[in-house]
């Protein structure tokens, strides 16, 4: 389900609208993921505080959204553009790729919550496809 030109334009447009709140979206989505899907906490056992709104969650939410923003700029070649991140996830972090779907779901819930008027079904489908392709690019080097 690769990204059409329309998908890419839609993703860039919605990113323009939501990027001012990127840090908030990242922190919220990560907090929700840890709450609603407790199995994801296993990757963060080294954090002192895993509750939503905690300092490590906020900080890491920002990191994640920074990478999402970077992916938007590299939307024409996600596999090439995210090669370094893929190596990080494949060889160092070794996060099970199922979790990319889980995080994507929570990002979508938060975007829908914060931008109900803008996150129409048309926008939703393009964003969903984008996250799927992003996840694939991140998993590229796994095996």
């Amino acid at each position, binding site marked *: 389900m690769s990204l059409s030109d329309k998908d890419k334009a839609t993703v860039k447009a919605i990113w323009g609208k939501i990027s001012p709140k990127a840090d908030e979206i990242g922190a919220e989505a990560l907090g929700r993921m840890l709450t609603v899907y407790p199995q994801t906490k296993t990757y963060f056992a080294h954090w002192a505080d895993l509750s939503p709104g905690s300092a490590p969650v906020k900080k890491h939410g920002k990191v994640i959204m920074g990478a999402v923003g970077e992916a938007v700029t590299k939307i024409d070649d996600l596999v090439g553009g995210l090669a370094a991140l893929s190596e990080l996830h494949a060889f160092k972090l070794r996060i099970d790729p199922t979790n990319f779907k889980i995080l994507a779901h929570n990002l979508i819930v938060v975007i829908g919550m914060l931008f109900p008027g803008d996150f129409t*079904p048309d926008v939703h489908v393009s964003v969903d496809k984008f996250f799927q392709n992003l996840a694939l690019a991140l998993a590229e080097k796994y095996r």
Partner: protein
Amino acid sequence: MVVWTDQERAYIKDIFSKLNYEDAGPKALQRVLIVYPWTQRYFGGFGNLYSAEAIQSNPMVAAHGTVVLHGLDKAMKNMDDIKNAYADLSVLHSEKLHVDPDNFRLLADCLTIVIAATMGSSFTASVQAAWQKFIAVVVSALSRQYH
């Protein structure tokens, strides 16, 4: 058997008390048909589904969305035995409608997003957790009579 805390029961009751079926039902069904277009396979008799605009103005989609959402009332009223409450509906979806159970999950996700968009910040992480647990139990119950 599924164990619900008092807090979870309260959250679910609260969501349903604020739910506008004629708004959320259509929106959720429209969203699943647009975001996951292969779900349209089950609605060959619904007329024009050729674009997002067509889906969003299709009266059959809207009517059916409301019906489907009311289907959740059964779960809300029988939270301690959702599995059995949905036995007949599960058989219907399997034997008569031939719906791939993965679609229940897709619709559940779209409904979650519609509810989140309607409730805004009152859809906290804890509320989301309770809601997703509830809807996962319904999805599981609906998937049970597939053989």
